[in-house]
């Protein structure tokens, strides 16, 4: 295989500007700003197709995190000294920037370690207000991060966990929703975009139905923030979580965003420094929201860096990033489909999916697929993608997944298709 030529293509060549499917071979967006994309893996230029696991980071983000440690490093909200004030400004600046990005005031943004810890905060924080026999509705396509915390609170509080099934096409079975939303339903938790099927769920529609029943709605936006254009209000949810590292930002940082009065309903789940107002030897009162949910020293370096990622996204515009991912996904669906013999999961229409495609080749187990692709410098994910119940319902223990970011181009999918052909040849297929 010969490729790698266009990796260093100048930023913004042939932008994806038009309708879905309009741009047949679009250029990479800002690829030259992502230092890791210049490296070789197993002697080949890296073809990174694992952005759903974590996106690569632009140099501006890496530089901002380094700058924080070189120039400002101090603890937040406690130092009276200059560095402490600067660190606090950077940390609070990130909170405001995230609020602006999603269209909510900064006071409704809680800084966490990631989507997982934010979901644990929502589940654990709502738990004490729920009564035995109350119901929680989750979907059959959730990542373990939006399933296991609910299993755990259900066990602890004696709640009933219900599951919204999927259609054969890999979408939520909305016909089953009225039956599953009962007078006891208190929480509906669903992902915005499935990390396996790619399906974009109609969150606003589900939220409206849930609200009519008096339930609160939790949306896992780990796969959508930074990839799909939307505001918090458009989704209509009460709680939204995401991780910075899947939106071109640093690891170890995530957010819980609450609707008006939604954070007030949560009990803190972590206790210690930073989250208190006054402490006596045997009692404490909580700090104001959102601080009462931020016990301990946070990841200030990551918070200092994340605004640079959001700036990069805004510079490209979410509309353009979305068109780009639709174009890549449509091309991947078409090429994988034409290969023959593969099972491809999720909706067939790229406009109804996020930028990822999971597939299964009966001739090559996903591990072997990922290993052989890696030998060509192509990074894909193989496994159950932290969604075992979903894989069980698909009838496989593992799938292979190719997922896209702004820096990918159609060439990368050509490399993937050639690579699958090579993997098949190893197994004599």
């Amino acid at each position, binding site marked *: 295989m010969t490729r790698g030529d266009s990796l260093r293509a100048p930023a913004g060549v042939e932008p994806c500007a038009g309708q879905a499917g309009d741009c047949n071979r679009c250029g990479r967006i800002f690829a030259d700003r992502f230092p890791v994309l210049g490296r070789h893996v197993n*002697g080949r230029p890296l073809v990174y197709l694992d952005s759903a696991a974590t996106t690569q980071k632009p140099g501006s983000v890496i530089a901002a995190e380094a700058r924080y440690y070189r120039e400002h490093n101090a603890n937040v909200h406690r130092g009276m000294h200059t560095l402490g004030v600067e660190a606090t400004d950077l940390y609070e600046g990130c909170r405001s920037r995230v609020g602006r990005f999603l269209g909510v005031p900064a006071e409704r943004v809680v800084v966490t370690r990631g989507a997982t810890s934010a979901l644990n905060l929502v589940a654990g924080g709502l738990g004490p207000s729920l009564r035995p026999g109350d119901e929680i509705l989750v979907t059959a396509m959730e990542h373990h991060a939006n399933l296991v915390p609910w299993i755990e609170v259900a066990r602890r509080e004696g709640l009933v966990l219900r599951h919204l099934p999927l259609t054969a096409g890999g979408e939520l079975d909305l016909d089953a929703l009225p039956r599953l939303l009962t007078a006891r339903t208190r929480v509906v938790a669903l992902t915005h975009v499935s990390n396996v099927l790619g399906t974009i769920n109609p969150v606003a529609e589900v939220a409206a139905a849930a609200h009519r029943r008096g339930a609160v709605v939790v949306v896992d936006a780990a796969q959508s923030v930074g990839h799909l254009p939307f505001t918090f209000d458009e989704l209509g949810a009460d709680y939204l979580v995401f991780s910075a590292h899947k939106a071109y930002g640093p690891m170890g940082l995530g957010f819980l965003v609450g609707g008006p009065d939604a954070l007030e309903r949560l009990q803190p789940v972590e206790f210690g420094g930073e989250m208190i107002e006054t402490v006596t030897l045997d009692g404490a009162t909580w700090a104001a929201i959102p601080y009462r949910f931020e016990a301990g020293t946070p990841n200030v370096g990551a918070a200092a860096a994340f605004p640079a990622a959001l700036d990069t996204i805004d510079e490209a515009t979410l509309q353009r990033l979305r068109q780009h991912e639709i174009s890549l996904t449509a091309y991947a669906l078409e090429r994988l489909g034409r290969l023959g013999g593969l099972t491809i999961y999720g909706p067939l229409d790229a406009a109804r999916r996020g930028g990822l495609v999971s597939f299964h080749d009966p001739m090559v*187990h996903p591990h072997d697929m990922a*290993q052989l692709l890696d*030998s060509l410098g192509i990074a894909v994910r*193989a*496994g159950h993608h932290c969604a075992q119940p979903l*894989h069980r319902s698909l009838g496989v223990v*593992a799938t292979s997944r190719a997922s896209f970011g702004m820096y990918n181009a159609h060439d990368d999918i050509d490399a993937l298709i050639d690579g699958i052909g090579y993997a098949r040849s190893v*197994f004599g297929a």
Partner: protein
Amino acid sequence: MNAGMDELYREVILDHHRSPRGREPLPGPVDARAEGKNPSCGDELVLELACAAGAITGAHVECRGCAIATASSSILAELVAGRTPQQARALAEAFRTAMHSPDGVLADDLDPGDLEVLTGVRKFPARVKCALLPWITLLSALDAGGDGAPAAPATTEA
């Protein structure tokens, strides 16, 4: 093949993967049974053993796993037949040790057959668990030891 792939997917391994041994259900009663899982990837395996006169007479494996796990379970089925449970255990333990040692040597007196080829997988750390899954499941089946009590599922994380 490229970038060391011929070291991982050796011809012997591909052959076991293409026509795995031990896929036929045991003709007689099952004397020991265990299930194994690799939680990091979801691979699953069921192993059944038949014994007579103090020796393993046959093995039946159902493996939902990659080429390495499949080949390893095929090699296992081939190698355990005719061994005493003690000998089978010694082989499994020697293999586990070899997979975590730099030289990966299996003593000749273990009569390791194609297992020797499989020790090459230790150079691919992400795949060591795939090769070990059948053997860890074997240890668990031997622990259950024929008294009919099912073994706790074996896991590569233990």
